């Protein structure tokens, strides 16, 4: 690609809040906790930050209230919101802003309290705006995150013969990783039988096909190469990125094909690597089916082969051919603020640094991929891909 060029930026700080339930901390406190945690991890101070990237989880108008609360001195802001994939896009946009000279040290935050605030369990009431042109064509029919992912899984099964047992292997792999994470929301190792025996919530998805609901958050620091090399942390370079909004296309769409087919191709082309080169993947795991479709669309297996690819523990670190979500992912560890993109990047950074838990660390993990699916697969979503390299 004539326009492709490696972004000149590094992820120098990464921090995941240890809490999974924070009834006694405000949203602003959690924002500060993660921002200062990532800066401490990098060896930087808040006064080094000149770019701030956040999603609508930051309370107030865009970045303004939290920038005020933290007393940041900024020359660049970006509040791109593609729901859970926002934070991968923020890394990409931060790298672009740094390459363009618009900032030198970018802070990216996520914090949320859905468990304490009783959100994320579905129900009739939605906060969608009737001015959304899709509102009247979807809300009256009872659209929920659960049932659109259910329809996506149902159609994948119909087209390709994917089974509930194959989907269950994704949760099984995540649970094998989560047992080693002392902060994980659930550290219980489960079997395929456990998953398929859990209650059906929206066919063909069962309770254990769904991610956890947690409070907490995380933050990342992206910096210029000279700054990255001046710090004492292992170097993690952003070498490829891609983003792709995907929607209903006027009523002619295929819900089993995600935007990852486009965002992944863009990231691989920019990085100059192929799926076979990737040692570790962080994949958005709002539901088991989300992981399976990303594996196919990113090119780790052919379309329709995802079920066979994930079976028999192929996603388990030390066992299978492609270790994924070694922190336990959103399925077991953490899905702070109902937005899983931040934690996907953080575990990929740990793997590339060689700082994942020893039981799940991938040997010589010099190349990792993180992918996010924000919004709803099967309706409207945005896929975002990052490829990270050591050194």
């Amino acid at each position, binding site marked *: 690609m004539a326009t492709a060029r490696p972004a000149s930026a590094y992820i120098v700080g990464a921090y995941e809040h240890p809490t999974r339930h924070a009834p006694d901390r405000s949203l602003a406190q959690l924002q500060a906790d993660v921002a200062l945690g990532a800066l401490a991890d990098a060896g930087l101070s808040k006064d080094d930050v000149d770019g701030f990237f956040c999603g609508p989880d930051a309370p107030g108008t865009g970045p303004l209230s939290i920038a005020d609360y933290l007393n940041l001195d900024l020359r660049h802001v970006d509040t791109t919101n593609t729901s859970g994939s926002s934070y991968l896009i923020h890394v990409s946009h931060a790298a672009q802003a740094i390459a363009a000279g618009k900032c030198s040290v970018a802070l990216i935050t996520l914090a949320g309290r859905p468990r304490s605030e009783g959100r994320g369990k579905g129900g009739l009431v939605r906060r969608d705006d009737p001015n959304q042109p899709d*509102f009247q064509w979807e809300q009256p029919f009872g659209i929920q995150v659960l049932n659109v992912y259910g329809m996506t899984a149902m*159609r994948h099964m119909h087209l390709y013969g994917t089974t509930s047992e194959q989907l269950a292997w994704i949760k099984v792999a995540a649970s094998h990783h989560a047992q080693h994470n002392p902060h994980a929301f659930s550290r219980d190792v489960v079997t395929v039988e456990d998953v398929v025996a859990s209650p059906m919530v929206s066919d063909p998805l069962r309770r254990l096909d769904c991610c956890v609901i947690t409070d907490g958050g995380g933050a990342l620091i992206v910096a210029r190469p000279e700054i990255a090399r001046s710090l004492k942390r292992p170097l993690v370079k952003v070498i490829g990125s891609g983003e792709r909004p995907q929607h209903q296309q006027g009523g002619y769409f295929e819900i089993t094909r995600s935007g990852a087919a486009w965002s992944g191709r863009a990231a691989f082309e920019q990085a100059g690597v192929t799926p076979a080169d990737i040692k570790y993947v962080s994949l958005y795991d709002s539901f088991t089916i989300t992981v399976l479709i990303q594996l196919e669309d990113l090119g780790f297996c052919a379309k329709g082969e995802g079920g066979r690819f994930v079976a028999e523990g192929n996603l388990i670190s030390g066992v299978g051919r492609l270790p994924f979500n070694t922190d336990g992912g959103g399925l077991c560890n953490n899905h702070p603020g109902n937005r899983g993109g931040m934690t996907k990047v953080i575990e990929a950074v740990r793997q590339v640094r060689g700082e994942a838990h020893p039981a799940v660390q991938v040997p010589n993990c010099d190349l990792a991929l993180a992918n996010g699916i924000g919004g709803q697969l099967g309706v409207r979503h945005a896929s975002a891909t990052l490829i990270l390299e050591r050194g």
Partner: protein
Amino acid sequence: MDERVFIEPVPTAETQAFWTAAGEGRFLVRRCGACGKAHWYPREHCPFCASGDTEWTEGSGDGTIYSFSIMRRAKPPYVMAYVTLAEGPTMMTNIVECDPETLRIGDPVRVTYVLTSEGKALPMFTPKGKVSP
């Protein structure tokens, strides 16, 4: 069983004709006069060629199930679905007046109307004849 409560559709200047027709038992589909293609959901400008020359046409009311999911956690449970219309596009809807356990992707369905508490007619679909599992 609890009675189902629907979120009310909020028609706009762009879509009022659709909801008025639905209240009369007519299913309208928006089609482009320039490129000839039908689209969903209905809008003024064609999502394919961007022409403003679109118009309401009488839809057949026939379609096939593109995908579905039985929302078992809801009270009462309901069948969320996408139906591919005979006119081409696929729309979000529900399958009603059916045994959810016997539904299959590809089943032929026909439009029917379910009233909200405010009396608006929601276009939903019901299986054509009895389809064996």
